[in-house]
């Protein structure tokens, strides 16, 4: 009995340690990648405004979207569990959502660039909690970004570029 209790603790602490170190490393890597790609994609402009500049000119349009599901790690879950007792900012989940949203926007921009677009208007970002598993655990969040990409028709050289 006492030995089994001990085993439980070992498993718990191992998961916690794995979650802490692997989770931190993964998060640092993800943020590094996000920052790098945000710079690369800085030329693809994304606006939340409804109306495109030069709204009277006919343009090519395409709906572009990007999405990602990011799961939290064991350590974050544990810390968040403690947080719900005390209230206040849940910093560990704030970064999770931040990563998911920025990644979704980046993927949307990547899709726009792949098809030769440099401007996206009416960008909407939404996020949904995707809970899996049977114990109601496994917090994972989906971020989804979409918008309308615009480019002037290539044939007509007289139109100014957006």
């Amino acid at each position, binding site marked *: 009995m006492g030995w089994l209790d001990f085993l439980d603790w070992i498993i718990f602490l191992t998961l916690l340690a794995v979650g802490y170190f692997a989770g931190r490393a993964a998060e640092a890597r993800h943020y590094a990648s996000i920052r790098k790609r945000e710079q690369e994609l800085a030329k693809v402009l994304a606006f939340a405004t409804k109306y495109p500049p030069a709204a009277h000119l006919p343009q090519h349009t395409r709906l572009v979207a990007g999405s990602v599901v990011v799961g939290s790690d064991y350590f974050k879950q544990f810390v968040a569990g403690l947080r719900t007792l005390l209230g206040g900012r849940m910093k560990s989940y704030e970064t999770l959502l931040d990563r998911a949203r920025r990644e979704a926007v980046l993927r949307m921009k990547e899709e726009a660039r792949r098809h030769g677009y440099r401007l996206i208007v009416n960008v909407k970002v939404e996020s949904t909690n995707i809970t*899996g*598993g*049977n114990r109601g655990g496994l917090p994972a969040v989906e971020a989804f970004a979409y918008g309308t990409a615009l480019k002037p028709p290539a044939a007509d050289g007289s139109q100014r570029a957006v």
Partner: protein
Amino acid sequence: MSNPFDEKSAGLTISNLEVLPGKRVKTHLGVVQGSTVRAKHAGKDILAGLKNIVGGELKGYTELLQEARDEATERMVQQAKSVGANAILNVRYTTTSITMGAAEILAYGTAVILE
């Protein structure tokens, strides 16, 4: 399945703008929608459970939701075509988690005939 986001393969423009620059709406045909409910594969769920120890992207889920969204869009496009539209404007997406392990994706917009 043709790519519903592609004007050429879908044969119809979709946009989340209310007004397309330089185009005029000739006829409004009302709301069209497409939806799908998807469940997760148990195997993927177990993998995701393991991934949840270390955190990071759950690729299986990302793909699942993306496929679901493509299908909802495709259904919306089919409906718009059946009423004779050549564009869908003001397209919106919503995602609802119905039960644990299943999600509904809804796409809707206004079907119109552009000049």
